[in-house]
């Protein structure tokens, strides 16, 4: 089969280039490791807590926040520190617990806790999560306050009593309900999100840089030489497309398996994961071919390929998680295939199977078809009308 002969020569040439091993195989895994180590925690939003005074309820709230898997608690000492850290973006949000909380609760007076976050972004999104946790922690205190105001016992004893009740079977349900509220699923390992982002980012960059190979093949007169053999233009284009696809798919599957074996990354349903890689590889092959027909100069195409690859990755949520984007930006992000692939990976991480990601796969397949058809038409012109 001639398309395979042409695709095979593409792979062979790729592996002959030493830099391939680094950029296609070593670098992506190294970055997954680095991001996992450096910023793995950063994917968890950081919430500062300023507890002005030690107290039963304050401790309760801090403990509950710390138990919340979707965020990380940073203890703060002063109001100034709080404002400063939030302003600088070191903290996504902060909570102030006023002095005398226990007393005012015991007296049945309303307590006011302060929550600050920078407008938009993670901080704002954290408000309901933190609110929920606080509410839950106050359950015991409220109950105690109720008991105490009714004059049935003193406040500390009542709180302890209420806590015991809450720790019983019915209250346990309440605790579990709130897990789903966090921004990122509790099951998300430190490498998981980084791995799928890097996978998408690198597959696409590898694909686009392959556009330069296509130009080189034309410049070297090899496309025309192929055409002088009994090989149709369609076969030549098919072979080149298959070659681009194979390179990208190979890298994708390699990163997937590598990240699974080395970092224990949880990808989700393997069939669905492979399906995403394959369809996304087809998108990459199409994009590579388009780049390969838009330029005449291989260096230019390679440069543009990397810029476009990085730009689309940033926009499409392969650098910063899409959850952190504003709704408008999220909508814009979905013009990139990256966002759809990201969504699909998020779904399967969260127990989804291939049926659940059918919409994402469909959109990606549509991207692939459009890009490949457009590029084939352009390439046909480029090969037969020099």
């Amino acid at each position, binding site marked *: 089969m001639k398309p395979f002969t042409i695709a095979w*020569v593409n792979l062979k040439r790729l592996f002959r280039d030493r830099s391939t091993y680094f950029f296609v195989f070593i670098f992506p895994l190294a970055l997954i490791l680095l991001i996992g180590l450096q910023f793995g925690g950063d994917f968890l939003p950081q919430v500062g807590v300023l507890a002005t005074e030690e107290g039963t309820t304050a401790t309760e709230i801090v403990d509950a926040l710390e138990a919340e898997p979707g965020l990380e608690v940073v203890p703060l000492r002063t109001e100034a520190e709080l404002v400063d850290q939030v302003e600088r973006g070191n903290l996504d949000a902060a909570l102030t617990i006023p002095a005398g909380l226990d007393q005012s609760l015991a007296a049945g007076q309303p307590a006011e806790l302060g929550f600050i976050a920078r407008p938009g972004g993670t901080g704002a999104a954290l408000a309901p999560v933190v609110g929920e946790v606080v509410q839950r922690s106050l359950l015991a205190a409220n109950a105690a306050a109720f008991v105490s105001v009714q004059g049935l016992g003193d406040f500390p004893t009542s709180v302890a009593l209420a806590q015991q009740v809450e720790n019983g079977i019915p209250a346990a349900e309440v605790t579990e309900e709130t897990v789903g509220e966090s921004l990122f699923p509790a099951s998300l390992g430190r490498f998981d999100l980084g791995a799928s982002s890097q996978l998408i980012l690198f597959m696409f960059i590898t694909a686009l840089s392959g556009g330069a190979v296509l130009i080189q093949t034309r410049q070297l007169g*090899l496309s025309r030489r192929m055409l002088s*053999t*009994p*090989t149709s233009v369609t076969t030549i284009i098919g072979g080149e497309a298959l070659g681009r696809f194979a390179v990208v798919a190979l890298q994708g599957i390699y990163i997937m398996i590598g990240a699974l074996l080395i970092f224990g990354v949880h990808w989700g349903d393997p069939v669905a994961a492979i399906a995403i890689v394959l369809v996304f590889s087809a998108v990459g092959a199409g994009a590579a071919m388009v780049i390969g027909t838009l330029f005449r100069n291989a260096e230019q195409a390679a440069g543009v390929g990397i810029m476009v690859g990085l730009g689309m990755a940033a926009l499409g949520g392969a650098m910063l998680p899409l959850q952190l984007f504003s709704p408008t930006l999220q909508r814009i992000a979905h013009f990139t295939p990256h966002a759809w692939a990201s969504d699909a990976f998020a779904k399967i991480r969260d127990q989804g199977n291939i049926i659940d990601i059918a919409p994402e796969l469909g959109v990606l397949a549509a991207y692939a078809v459009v890009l490949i058809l457009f590029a084939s038409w352009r390439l046909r012109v480029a090969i037969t009308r020099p």
Partner: protein
Amino acid sequence: MANVMEAHDLAKRFGDLVAVDGVGFSIAPGETYGLLGPNGAGKTTTISIIAGLLEADAGKVEVGGETISPSAIGPKRRMGLVPQDLAIYPDLTARENLHFFGRLYGMDNNEVKERSNRVLEMIGLTDRADDLTKEYSGGMKRRLNIGIGLLHGPELLILDEPTVGVDPQSRNAILEAVEALSGEGMAVLYTTHYMEEAERLCDRVGIIDQGRIKAEGTRRELVNLVGQKDRVTIAAAGGQLQEAARRLSGLEGVEEAGADDQGITLLVVEAGRLLPVILSELSQNGISVSGVTIEEPDLEAVFLHLTGKALRDV
């Protein structure tokens, strides 16, 4: 026996430029046909149409009785093309290059292996067959470029200026290889702007200039067009050579005169009688002559006769 290739009235324009303008010729089995013409004459364009790489604006090419076009598969099996510009993978070895194109010609693995070995032997690259071609010398690359074209044993081998930029030794090896293939019965279409190559290799030559075939025939037939005239080549420098050539062409007995930066070439009826006149004319115009050769008519003379231009090795 039917012709291997027949081209009729081929025409091709690139924008306003007419690259090929009514070219037609045919090649019989086992025949070596030469297209002789200067840079930009339209040789490569003609060959690209014949090899099915380029769609002609008008005209028709038949190879083995089948019409060729970029989408025609059948007739391409019968041809092997050696493009003017190298077309080999630099990051593959010679053997891998041959293997790849062998597969595209539809050979199976064993056939490719066997043929590759024979071709490597023939082009003298057996020792270096497993080195990457980017490590080859220019001449070695050219030889591989040729090897790929003849790998599948085509009925018609098309060579587009295969000796350009090649050292004399490699050049001779290439010419010998073409002679050998022709001896085995392969038809060859050979383009060149080297008169000696056309004279040495070709059974018939078409003289092409500005997209048109000016004359066609065996060497003898072409030379007879010129008649009993000598070709006088004057190596000269200084002064206005073009201007001097124009003046000389006005002399009685001077049929044609053309100039390039190395001197002046003339077709002269009686060279011995006219030479003193020519030389004095030149010295009067401040042109210093460094050498004079007088030759019997050859294809160079034919070209001059047909086009009024010198066909020079570049």
